[in-house]
């Protein structure tokens, strides 16, 4: 091949490419214009979907889609997690607390147009009572239900075996349409409800592609008014950095707790400098804690596991607690986006949170050293303390989650502080699954833990009662957080469960937290803030939960933010008018055609020349 032929081919190829690019340039604005007719709220996520079945789902992403697709009788308020009317306009509790009567909202309909009645509520609660699989999945609540009836279209009556006011109001039971669900062969199956889902909430899931997107379409006939956006789309991003870049580029509207692990302070810092992005550093519902193996036992008192004997001594645990500067952890690891923790319930739940009064442990390494000296844990020649009377050195295994960088940094801090106490800490990063296995087998000394707490504190408090201690030693029963068992605590727990007066209940709950704090089976480190950001050029008016300094993503009981969100009114000034695109495309096409003609002519003359 001669060099001219090569040049010619290259030229033709380039021209063909340019031509097709020109065609695309004409097509692109048209497609964009079509999309602009639909207002879409884009939320970044990386969480897989377990199941859309609202009775079985366990993941956060499907919690949010269930909240939007279906509805509960009682919503959880946006102001301060208070119960507010949802599908039920009002409710009454009988004197003995066993019978609850709900008035179902008139005029509400399912997304397929069928009317929603008290029959649907009765059908849903009866699934919990009668469908064995659904019953078992929700055993902690369902076991207490006796009957669910609908005497007429607007009255729903729920009967309980024991009073449980908080559970009835806060337990999120998503009312499903009887006329659809009664046709399902097995309502407890993972794929029982096929897409598009029929629900009564503000948005319904219509489409889902694994690792690509989840699409929810607005319910225009929603009883509380049509939502501001036509659809909500969860867009999948593998890396949080990629989601941040997408928000910067305007491809996604909200990045927050939809990304597992959330945004970190550096990413928030980067987003703050963007003119179109609003960042939100909201108080969170999550605590991070250190579980100390103070001796794992079963219901009948059989000890198992291989925890260090020194950790059974409350003095050692308190000394370790005293040697942790929680404020420093918040300042450095979280860059101030959090609060030092006291006990189980994060401070976002003001009514339940125990602030410690004036009795909190103060960071003081000298005092901690004195405690251990006085208790007889003498230092050996290598500076490591041993059990009183010599013997086993205080060498603790410290397990943290391998995929969590923040935990690794916390470990570095805590290890350095504890080294000053003469404790020998062997830190090890372990996969989450393995770490949980070891923790429930009692084969650890210190391990990380962390939970998101809901508006009803019973579930979290219940993980520290004697009733949930395992019966077997094989680590398969995982209801007890750390083998804590204290009759005084249990008595308080039973009282708070049936207490209808919120103020009286709060006193009991706080007393429980104080007991946990003093016994220190677990050291609570900090309450982590939710870091999130959104594009205020495209979305506005999102209601936070709680009202003061609250969060947009990760709301509880009702997705106030996505429901109230509406497109910003700011003018779209980014796109050029259509005629510019057409002119550009035309110019490109002409130029490319010219190049082809030129190349052809060259070819002809070349042939002649040859």
């Amino acid at each position, binding site marked *: 091949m001669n060099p001219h032929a090569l040049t010619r081919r290259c030229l033709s190829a380039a021209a063909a490419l340019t031509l097709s690019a020109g065609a695309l340039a004409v097509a692109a604005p048209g497609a964009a214009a079509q999309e602009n007719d639909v207002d879409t709220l884009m939320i970044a996520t990386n969480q897989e979907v377990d199941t859309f079945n609202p009775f079985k789902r366990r993941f956060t992403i499907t919690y949010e889609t269930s909240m939007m697709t279906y509805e509960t009788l009682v919503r959880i308020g946006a102001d301060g997690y208070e119960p507010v009317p949802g599908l039920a306009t009002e409710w009454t509790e009988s004197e003995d607390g066993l019978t609850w009567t709900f008035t179902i909202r008139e005029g509400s309909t399912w997304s397929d147009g069928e009317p929603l009645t008290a029959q649907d509520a009765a059908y849903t609660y009866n699934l919990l009572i009668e469908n064995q699989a659904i019953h078992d999945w929700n055993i902690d609540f369902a076991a207490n239900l006796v009957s669910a009836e609908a005497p007429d279209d607007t009255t729903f009556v729920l009967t309980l075996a024991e009073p449980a006011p908080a559970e009835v109001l806060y337990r999120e039971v998503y009312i499903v349409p009887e006329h659809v669900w009664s046709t399902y062969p097995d309502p407890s199956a993972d794929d029982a409800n096929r897409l598009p889902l029929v629900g009564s909430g503000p948005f319904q899931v219509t489409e889902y592609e694994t690792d690509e997107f989840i699409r929810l379409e607005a319910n225009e006939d929603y009883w509380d008014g049509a939502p501001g956006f036509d659809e909500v789309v969860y867009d999948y991003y593998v890396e949080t950095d990629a989601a941040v*870049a997408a928000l910067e580029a305007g491809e996604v509207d909200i990045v927050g707790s939809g990304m597992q692990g959330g945004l970190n302070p*550096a990413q928030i810092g*980067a987003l703050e400098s963007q003119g179109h992005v609003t960042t939100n550093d909201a108080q969170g519902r999550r605590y991070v804690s250190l579980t100390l193996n103070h001796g794992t036992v079963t219901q009948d008192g059989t000890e198992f596991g291989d925890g260090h004997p020194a950790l059974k001594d409350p003095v050692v645990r308190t000394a370790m607690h005293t040697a942790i500067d929680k404020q420093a952890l918040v300042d*450095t*690891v979280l860059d101030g986006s959090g609060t030092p923790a006291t006990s189980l319930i994060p401070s976002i739940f003001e009514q339940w949170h125990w602030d410690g009064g004036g009795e909190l442990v103060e960071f003081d390494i000298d005092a901690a050293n004195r405690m251990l000296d006085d208790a007889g844990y003498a230092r050996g020649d290598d500076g490591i303390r041993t059990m009183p009377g010599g013997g086993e050195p205080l060498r603790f295994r410290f397990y943290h989650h391998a995929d969590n960088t923040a935990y690794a*940094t916390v470990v570095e801090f805590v290890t350095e502080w504890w080294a000053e106490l003469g404790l020998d800490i062997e830190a090890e*990063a*372990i996969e989450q699954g393995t770490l949980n296995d070891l923790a429930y087998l009692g084969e650890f000394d210190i391990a990380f833990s962390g939970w998101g707490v809901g508006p009803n504190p019973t579930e979290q408090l219940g993980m520290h009662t004697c009733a949930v201690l395992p019966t077997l030693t094989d680590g398969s029963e995982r209801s007890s957080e750390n083998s804590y068992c204290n009759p005084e605590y249990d008595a308080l727990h039973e009282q708070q469960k049936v207490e209808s007066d919120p103020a009286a209940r709060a006193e009991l709950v706080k007393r429980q937290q104080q007991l946990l704090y003093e016994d220190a089976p677990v050291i609570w480190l900090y309450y982590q803030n939710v870091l999130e950001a959104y594009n205020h050029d495209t979305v506005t008016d999102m209601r936070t939960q709680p009202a003061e300094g609250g969060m947009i993503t990760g709301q509880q009981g009702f997705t106030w933010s996505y429901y109230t969100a509406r497109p910003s009114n700011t003018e779209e000034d980014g796109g050029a008018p259509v005629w510019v695109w057409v002119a550009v495309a035309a110019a490109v096409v002409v130029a490319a055609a010219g190049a082809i003609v030129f190349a052809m002519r060259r070819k002809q003359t070349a042939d002649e020349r040859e």
Partner: protein
Amino acid sequence: MTSTTASPRALHLSSKRARRKLARARRRRSFARSWTAYRSQRTGMVGLVLLGAIVVLAIGAPILIDESQLSVTQATGGRMEPPSAAYPLGTDETGRSILALTLWGSRLSLLIGLTATVVAILIGTAIGVTSGHIGGWYGWIALRISDWFMVLPSLVVAIALLAVLGRSMATTITVIALVSWSGTTRLVRAQTLTVQARPYLERARALGAGHWHQMTKHILPNVLPLVLASATLLVPSAILMESSLAWLGLGDPSVVSWGSILNRASDNGAVSAHAWWYLLPPGLAILIVVLAFMMCGRALEAVFNPRLRGER
């Protein structure tokens, strides 16, 4: 050295000593010859100087920078501060100097890279020499096993092994050695077969030399130069492997290596924050070390491999 009134035993001893002296002189000469050949290669010399500087820095790190600078509780800098007079390469998210981390990281990265290579080379040479020399069904099986390790995708195997064995320095070294010994085996086996065919080995066999004698006295010395060159080329891949694994979050998070610094940087949002001072130093350090080892290795290869020398 030998006295005139020597007994036969002393004579015997002295002749042994003379033989050793001769051997030493021969080795010295051959070393000098190789050194001259090596010195004539500019890239090799540059690599050697670079490597020397890096090793001096790594060994001297504790003198240059106090270990307390790695302490998170005693860190004085701000959060991800850009480079300044106090922190020439800026700080990380806990306020530690990136310069200190990078210098200290060199120790672990080099240690893991070198140890893993030594282990891999030991395994590779042992299997290579024995399979080449002994041959038969043993040689066949050894060869198939090394083939099998060669076709396994090393990073995937390393990740799987680390997931099973847990994360620590020892397991990282083991895993890297395990996935990288097979190349050496091939090389050593080929060279063993070549040496095997030389007449003096036939003579040694005729004189009654056993397998052990043949392998250690005749084959190994002839194979070692190649092994040295191959080891020098294996170190950079081991360092890269360690860094990749640590960057993927599979290293021991409680130790400082270049890969783990990169891992922390990306996990803490250094990319979004455009904190180039956090990402660049460990990345460049990896680049320079790998480059230095490659330069030395290529030069050594050229020295010891006559065919490559001819090309030059």
